[in-house]
């Protein structure tokens, strides 16, 4: 699984939201949140995007909101640099380059919530 983490700063006077992300290396990118469902922390698509309050920040971080990269078109190696374009609710967009790192958190935490949990 591949996810992008970042800190977003909104210097403006009105709240905006990160509404979508694209990258040439991924077929699909989704904005995800981690939520408690039936007593378990699961990952799900974040309705309405990731809000960045006016004059404040949104931190996309492990175990919190993040950008999911799916349908990778190439293997990503640690240290590679990946271009990502972010689009916001005010119509603006921002290009950034992010470094690839190996991930330390258990990948199990990032299984989509649509997958039913197996009970023996």
């Amino acid at each position, binding site marked *: 699984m591949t996810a992008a*983490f*970042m800190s977003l700063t909104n210097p403006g006077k009105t709240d905006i939201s990160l509404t979508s992300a694209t990258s040439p290396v991924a077929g699909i990118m989704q904005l995800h949140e981690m939520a408690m469902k039936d007593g378990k922390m699961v990952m799900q698509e974040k309705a309405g995007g990731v809000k960045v309050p006016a004059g404040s920040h949104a931190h996309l*971080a*492990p175990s919190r909101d993040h950008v999911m990269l799916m349908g990778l078109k190439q293997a990503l*190696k*640690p*240290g*590679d*640099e990946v271009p990502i374009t972010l689009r916001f609710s005010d119509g603006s967009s921002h290009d950034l380059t*992010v*470094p690839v*790192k*190996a*991930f*330390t*958190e258990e990948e199990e935490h990032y299984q989509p919530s649509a997958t039913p949990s197996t009970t023996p």
Partner: protein
Amino acid sequence: MTGRPSRRQLFGYAGAAAAGAAVTGGVVALGNDTPETVVVARDIDPYGDHQPAIAAASPKHAELVALTLLPSTDKAALGRLMRLWTNDIVALSAGRPAPGDTAPELAVPGVALTVTVGFGPKVFTLPDLVKPRGFSEVPVMSHDRLQPAWSGGDLLVLVGADDAVSVVHAVRRLVADAAPFAKPLWRQTGFWNGTGADGQPVTGRNLFNQVDGTGNPAPGTPEFDSTVWSTDGWTTLVVRRIKLNLDAWDELTRSEQERAVGRKLSNGAPTTGTAEHDELDLEKRDADGRLVIAENAHSRLSHHSVNDGRRIFRKGLNYVQDDGATRESGLIFLSYQADLVGQFLPLLARLDAADALNEWTTTIGSAVFAIPPGFRSGTWLGQSLLA
């Protein structure tokens, strides 16, 4: 003034901070009745021609990690690791979590955190990589009792800060991000007090109670630059783990201890002088006609005037290694020089043959690293070697 570490790389250090100018993450604590006691938290700029920790004052706390390259790590992979580490260093130096940090609250500003990265000899055996001039292994000396557990390494990360938590956190992050490329071989933790009671920088003392490093060329001087930097901005680092036999040292009288080095314990002055930075008088004799600074005194044997002008820039970190109730004490000796073969090896051979201190010191670890130049915004560590 000589021997004082340069503070020009530091943002918001004493003077500027007190004037209220350009404090980066700074905290100024002024005692009500002792205005000369100024404690200033500060960050050190990670960018520059050289990796910044080398010319900066010794950190209070430091950890060195040597790593071994995984078999799959080639020139391109090493370049990817250096780009990752460069990113991490920029963030951690400013007190920001490194990208993907799983303990982001442990990254705090104002602790003067620095990271120095070096390449061991094996890196220069990878295809297409050229060894810097004057870089080589250090041969085993006759007094050495080297242990593999403290020797060698393909990569070095040296993290320093005024706060031990910050050091440990940065090391953990850098080692975690290196996991796809290299694995730790040894770790050494050390500490140094380079601040006097009045808050001003001082040379600092090792665990023999000696003022240690007085003879260094002072950062910011032409002597420092020609001693440390090669023409292409590299330097070399020798790391020697030196065990100190404190029990035997404690049996000596104070004058015997001073005679072994040729310097006074009180302030580091030569036994022929009064102030720390007084020049040694290597000819001076006492009433009995004996040399005041003995033939085998450490300060004489290591002095550049008797070594064809050869100098090194040495920094120390005290260490203790505990095993249950048993404690080993020592010094992590760090020597920077432009040309390891031309400057360091002749000096080491001379000290190994005759230094009075050899009776109470044993080198148990040894490693060498070539230290690439610094980086600027948009460039990365080791780019000139690996791009």
